[in-house]
């Protein structure tokens, strides 16, 4: 009896092979397994036989949307910046997408990073992905050489180590609080849609910090990011970060220093997160990619919370719904404005 992920893998291979064989897509973007346990390799199947290498399991943590725009571009005929777009339809790319990935694809469509027509989305309703760092913590950072996955548990092995871990215990924070596991746009589905999940405390992590004093919040923030080595894995793993020149690399003016000095690191993380405001789908790629275990996701989660509270929108729910920071309402909340609070006092 195959596990859920094994059967998803099978179906994924079939669909991908079919898309490639039938020439509907020039490539299929998925995952394959690699040389290190719990680390999956984003993989571009270009030939039908490649499809057999596709794999789906609980360690597909990086958002594939991140790869789409450049991959699509790679199939366009080379042209100079101001040449007219090529005639006729351009090659398509197939891709597997969970809820958050698909919502990032929506944002990318809204932000002209790709055309919906050019992607064939194979939807997968997410059961949540496993946080490798949680697994390592669970075995007290012992050496792990293999992980066997069942539907609800992980069998972890290493030199002098054999342990079964409850899968849900090591699911990533973002997946544990995920409300929309279903893809919002897709061409085909693998398995059923499970519907929105009812999460009472989806912002618990954020609220805990909100309740601290300003001093303690600063303490938390600085100690959270102090190990940052400025490798930008978080940025590069993010499907929203596609600026040709990141503000980090601007030198006129230099918004932020490039060294590891605390202020520079802080400003990098503040602006990186702020640039995701109203766009972030909490896919958790940043956190999963970070080699230093920094939980920068909490920052974007805070922004997600406020945008929802203030403007009642969540990123990527539909292509039509405008991005919250490039629109407004006459009666948007403004009690944060000093002169408005004055009025309050006078009344």
């Amino acid at each position, binding site marked *: 009896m195959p596990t859920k992920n094994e059967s998803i893998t099978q179906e994924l291979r079939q669909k991908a092979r079919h898309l490639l064989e039938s020439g509907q897509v020039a490539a299929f973007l998925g995952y394959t397994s690699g040389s290190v346990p719990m680390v999956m390799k984003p993989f571009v199947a270009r030939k039908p036989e490649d499809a057999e290498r596709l794999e789906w399991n609980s360690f597909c943590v990086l958002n594939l949307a991140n790869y789409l725009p450049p991959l699509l571009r790679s199939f366009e005929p080379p042209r100079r910046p101001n040449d007219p777009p090529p005639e006729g339809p351009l090659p398509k790319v197939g891709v597997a997408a969970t809820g958050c990935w698909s919502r990032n694809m929506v944002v990318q469509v809204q932000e*002209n990073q790709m055309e919906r027509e050019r992607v064939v989305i194979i939807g997968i309703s997410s059961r949540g992905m496993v946080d490798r760092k949680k697994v390592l913590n669970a075995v007290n950072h012992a050496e792990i050489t293999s992980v066997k996955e069942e539907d609800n548990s992980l069998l972890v092995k290493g030199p002098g180590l054999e342990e079964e871990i409850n899968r849900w215990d090591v699911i990533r924070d973002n997946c544990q609080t995920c409300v929309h596991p279903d893809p919002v746009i897709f061409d085909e589905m693998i398995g059923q849609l499970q519907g929105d999940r009812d999460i009472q405390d989806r912002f618990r992590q954020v609220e805990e910090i909100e309740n601290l004093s300003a001093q303690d919040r600063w303490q938390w923030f600085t100690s959270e990011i102090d190990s940052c080595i400025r490798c930008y894995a978080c940025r590069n793993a993010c499907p929203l970060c596609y600026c040709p020149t990141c503000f980090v690399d601007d030198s006129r003016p230099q918004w932020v220093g490039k060294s590891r000095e605390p202020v520079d690191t802080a400003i990098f993380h503040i602006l990186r997160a702020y640039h995701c405001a109203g766009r972030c789908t909490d896919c958790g790629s940043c956190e999963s990619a970070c080699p230093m275990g920094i939980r920068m996701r909490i920052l974007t989660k805070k922004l997600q919370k406020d945008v929802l509270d203030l403007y009642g929108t969540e990123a990527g729910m539909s292509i039509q719904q405008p991005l919250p920071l490039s*629109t407004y309402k006459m009666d948007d909340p403004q009690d944060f404005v000093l002169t408005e609070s004055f009025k309050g006092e006078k009344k």
Partner: protein
Amino acid sequence: MSTPKGSVLIVGGGIAGVQAALDLADSGFYVHLVEKSSAIGGSMSQLDKTFPTNDCSACILSPKLVECGRHLNINLLTLSEVLSIEGEPGSFRVKVRENPRYVDVDKCIACGSCAEKCPKKVPNEFDLGLGKRKAIYLRYPQAVPLKYAIDPEHCIYLKKPGRCGFCEKVCPADAINFKDTAREHDLHVGSVILALGFRPFDPSRLDFTGYGQFKNVVTSMEFERLLSPSGPCLGHMERPSDHQEPRKIAWLQCIGSRDINKACHGYCSSVCCMYAIKQAVIAKEHSESGDVDATIFFMDMRTHGKGFEAYYNRARDEGIDFKRARVHTILPAANDNLKVRFAGEDGKIAEDEFDLVVLSVGLETDPQVMRLAHELGIELDSDSFAATSCFRPVETSRKGIFVCGALAEPKDIPQSVMEASAAALEAERILHPARWTETRKKEFPPERDVHAEPPRIGVFVCSCGINIASVVDVQAVTDYAWTLPGVVFAQNNLFTCSQDTINQMAEIIKRERLNRVVVASCTPRTHEPLFQETLREAGINKFLFEMANIRDQDSWVHQDEPDAATLKAKDLVRMAVAKVRGDEPLPYNSVPVTKSALVIGAGVAGLTAALSLADQGFPVTLVERKDRLGGHARKFFRTWQGQEVQSYLQELAGMVEANANIDVHLGTTVEDVSGSVGQFRTMLSDGTEVKHGAAIVAVGAESFKPRQGRWNYLYGKNPNVHTLLELDQRFIKDDPGLKGLNQAVFIHCVGSRVPERPYCSRVCCTHAIDQAIHLKEMNPDMDIFMLYRDIRTYGKREHLYQKARSLGIVFIRYDLDNLPRVSETSGRLVVEVKDPIIDAEVTLHPDLLILASAVRPRDDVGELSKLFKCAMTSDGFLLEAHMKLRPVDFATDGVYLAGLCHYPKPVEETIAQAKAAASRAGLVLSRDAVPAESITAVVNAQKCTGCSVCTKVCAYHAVNMDANSQKAVVDTGLCKGCGACVAGCRSDAITLKNLGNEQIMAAVEAAMEDF
């Protein structure tokens, strides 16, 4: 009439003359501006501050004067007088005598060494003799033209040739010319505007004032000079006798006004109440000791203008003592003080002692002007003001010759400015076929390409008289500027905006090969254009310029912290220098003009404005929400001068309907407005889209109907209680029922000057009194009582007040804390009120009770103001760009206002303002293109991700995605340079020219630099 001349003669270089000159010269006519003194500026240049904003008079006037002095199409003729005017509208022959200045204006550099050396001291008439000047002199520091003149009356050399002549010896420019003689000019012009102004009443005619006998009795004009930083005591308020700061000052109102006996001036001078309050407020501010007792003796407090009542209230709160009493003697007291003896309202005699007495003297016409008027065949009225009529407020008795300012009637600055534009309009109406026929075009020298040059920054630090220098150590700031990177020149000036400094600046820019300029003075909002033009004249692009606001935002707000203020000034200069270093030359963009106008509201204002433009050949779309023309005025009986309003209104409406250039939309409102000056697109409720280059908002106001609440007085409950307009209706119908009445009572200020509506409605006093007179004329036996708070029959309207009294109409004053009480017994009205003079309750039984109710702004004005992005006052009227000098402009270019939506006003003022608005709109419509934004967004395609945030946040649809590159592109014609796209862009791919992140942050980082 054959094609008219394209030039206009303006007589009088005060603010009115200057405004008229600028309007005409900017809309295509050549102007000869004749001024009898050696410099333009008139009375306004002598004032210290102006009410109700307390703007520094010189500061707001100076840019206009300089503009006038520099204007290519204005020919300044100073020291000149008009001798004769022959001809007719469209073609007048004018003889002008230009008296000798004895100083060659082309050579004089105004260095002042002549005056320094001149041995002859004479009283300075600019300071009304309080100070001294030399026989060779400058009228005042910011004089335009800034050229010295020799006063032949006193010059030793001219009296006895061979003696003296020092000036000639010391003049470095060899500008002295004792042989100079009078010249006569024959001017051929199409029209003439008289803006000859007024002269302050000379109180020595009134011996009770002790003026002339006691040193410490001064006129209000003299007191202005005592307050003024450029005055005899450099702004340190001193009294003449001992140069001590006065601690206790009295103002005596109505000196030479409202006085038919001694002064034989029956009229009200209409500005004295406000300027007295202003002087009292400023005196308190000015005093170093900080405690000045100010008392104002008055009969009626006449604060009937926009923002005046609030100013009055604020003054009362600040502890200025307003005494309703008539002063009858002033006696000397110990150490040059003065005993003021006066009769209070209750008739009791009282006495008080003051250090200084200021006589609020009225305005009168100068006898010389009377003579000139006589020679020119201009009819004057019984008060010796130019005779005009309510429906033709700026037309004199002689066709083609127009009048504006105080020559027609005493009035304040905004009113004069309005009339100036209105007079200009009348001239344009006659001469429009000759537009641009006699004008010359401004040619700037080619601009030096500074791209390759390293920054060479010049810093000019202004003292602004003492406005800045009294708080900020300007020398220290100047020295500091020298030490800043890129600065190769720094200088401190007394008035950087004065003509000589301006010219000098241009010279310095050339000499020092400056390629960036910083001026540290006042606010760029008023002075940037002036300095920028100077850059152009010096041959560099005007955008290589920054200002550091060390006055409005430093010296004025940190008066008690000179050190901190100086430190801040240095920071501000450093910031400006850091910013200007990155400034780049920008192109001068322009937008083509749709040569048609939209006028909203078809009341008297709207109709007048529409006609005024249509007559000049500009197509006009006239929008009226009601289904007929006429607006508020349809309810009026007659003007205070007695002309019937309805017949006039029919005539006016008839002309509008008949005019082919006017497209009338009745029962229509404005739905949406897009575009901007020159290129508006407006959607009307009837579905038409109107393209227009300018818009005039004249949506009027409503009269307040006190249906309930404190001001109800049984209105709407008892049939015999009317508002003024309702009584007018009965007059119009000639209702016989009115003749038989025994008693009528008027209650003034119903809903005006009250907490919920703190402004004065300006028109009701005159209107009510005129109605009372009309009733009295219908039935002389009728008893009429006017229950009032202050009678505000300003200007010539005062005659009505006198007439009413002479007809036996009874005036009883009340105030807010004992209002008249109105009741009815068996349908009969009973009015009780306390008469303060006999100090007793009076009970009246009127057959008719008339409520002089307020004029209130329309509730939907807010919507409209949003559509045109115009501001409103707290009272709910529309807010003009500048209370004093731009009374019909909005802050938004290309949009103007007129009529009651601006503030309550009588029909003659509405007409004048409507014509003024038309004149201002003409400035836009008369040209093919208006300057467009140069500071626009620009895209760095290499950085652009094509995410289109910029296109979404742009309110002007100026940013779009290029179909090919899928990168943002900016339409510079549409871009207004707001920068919303810049802040929205995560990639720093779109930026504003000269307002890019790098430059703004350079300023910010400079602000934080340690010393």
